[in-house]
């Protein structure tokens, strides 16, 4: 008997296609910045692709900070069980 196929969402081919789709959507969100004017209240958020790089950069920073704090703060999850 053949091994049961994994759910279509989990097949490597689907995952590859999903990444391509995601990349396409990401690029698509940048296109309007060529035509429309973002509000520029603080002199930075009107620049091209501001929200894209700002979202990516701040998230990366938060993940790294959390990772570093984790070395300091993490304890085995039975730490308080005594």
């Amino acid at each position, binding site marked *: 008997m053949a091994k049961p196929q994994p759910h279509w969402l989990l097949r490597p081919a689907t995952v590859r296609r999903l990444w391509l789709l995601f990349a396409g959507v*990401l690029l698509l*969100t940048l296109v309007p910045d060529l035509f429309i004017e973002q509000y520029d209240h603080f002199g930075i958020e009107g620049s091209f692709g501001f929200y*894209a790089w700002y*979202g990516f950069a701040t998230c990366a920073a938060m*993940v790294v900070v959390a990772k570093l704090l*984790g070395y300091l703060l*993490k304890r085995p999850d039975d730490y308080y069980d005594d």
Partner: protein
Amino acid sequence: MTTNPALLLLGGALLLPLLPARARPAALLGLPLLTLAAVWGVADGAQLAVTFLELELVPLRGSSVGRLFATIFALMAFAGALYALRQARLLEQVAAQAYAGGAIGVTFAGDLVTLFVFWELMAIGSTLVIWAANTPQAYRASMRYLLVHLFGGVVLMAGIAGHYVDSGSVAFVAMQPDSLAHWLILVGFLVNTGAPPLSAWIPDAYPEASPSGAVFLSAFTTKTAVFALLVGFPGATVLVWIGLWMIFYGIIYALLENDMRRILAYSIVNQVGFMVCGIGIGTAMALNGAAAHAFAHIIYKALLLMSAGSVLLMTGRRKCNELGGLFQSMPLTAACGIVGALAISAFPFTSGFVSKSLIAQAAIDEQLATVWMLLAAASAGVFLHAGIKFPWFVFFQKDSGLRPPDPPWNMRAAMLLFAFLCIAIGVYPAPLYALLPFPVDYQPYTVAHLVAQFQLLLFSGLAFFVLLPLMRRTETVSLDLDWFYRRLATRLVRWLLRHGDRAWTRLVALLGRRADDVLAGLFRTHGPHGVLARSSPTGSMVLWVALLLALLLLAGYA
């Protein structure tokens, strides 16, 4: 005379256990709806005033912001009761109704004494909800939870007393943190929002409750505190920074966490941080934003916890590293969880988008550049820690091999109701905007705003998947300031018990003979066989009581 809507739920809670089991579902679902109707029957202004111990109490006062919060509390009580209908213990159902009643009582309180009474009722109701999970862990967590809230209550009461002495009034009106009494009231309110340094009680206690218990808990305590801050301290600048701290605390701790419901508990602190920050900004736009965000938040956070609770109920597992792949057999739970996750992330066309934008807009209007930059980073961070992390690790990631079905119908119905509301409010925000305390002149759906939000969120999503290796799940808890009472304090007591004896003998020796005599004297009267420590039999107690009564009688005639 108008009835106080809170009394419907509180009275109902008392009667519920007496009803035959067949009649209970109707009461559990009907009472919140009756309450909702009653909420809308209360006109603006003081509806009831009584004088008690020379205090002018206003137990029932209608206001637009109170009505908004009472409406969502009643809706929550209904959806929560539906979700808990067939699975929760009677104790939990009763406690949850009383808890909701307490929350609604606060929203109609026209004076600080009434507020305090309902505030404490909530503390008791919520403790019982945690207790109803019936595990030793839940019991211990509920006791820690209760201690924090009793502490907050004492601070609040001290503040109210001081405020009365200062001003001669207990009316619940806007204050500024300008006196010790007002600071105490502010701190009393903030304890219930999960503000620093006491934030740990939320992720400590809520995830120990039953699947439905956590849903109730997520809604009432913190949002009642938001209501109290909104009425009591609008525009208190310190709240901007407290709120921002809560926002980033929630994100960082949620990123470190492995327990799915604890992730969501940390994200409550994060979301309430947005509201606290808005209240601190204090303009009409910001206060509208805080109120709208509280309304939207209750719905999507409850939905997220319903989804997580369904997973817990059907699999018995709560750790992300033991879950995954559940979308295959629990499609509805996964879909509803994703709707909640999108709403909390303020995805366009969900409720979070139309509510959180108001707060960000207020920061722009006030030219608060730093605050706005931090809020934008936090919005990205919400998508990271809750919007993707929760659904990804629970429903996707690796396949855990678990194939549980979706939960029973009543739980599915509650999830569908709230998932519907998340989207309905997002697509058509006008009814929510109409409920807000100030007139709304804001259009969330502009092309520029949509583009900005899509860029922000989707590139956060990219960051999540790119950095996934840095977020490997570990079976850990994260240290927090609760370490001081959970670890240091218990260690200290144990150490004292072990070494106290020797230290005591030494101390007595050091103090010399005189101390010895005093102690010996005390031991004679108060020691195990001392006259004053004797546990007298009931008979002798009755004798003494009779004697006292006789004396009183004599004194009365004399």
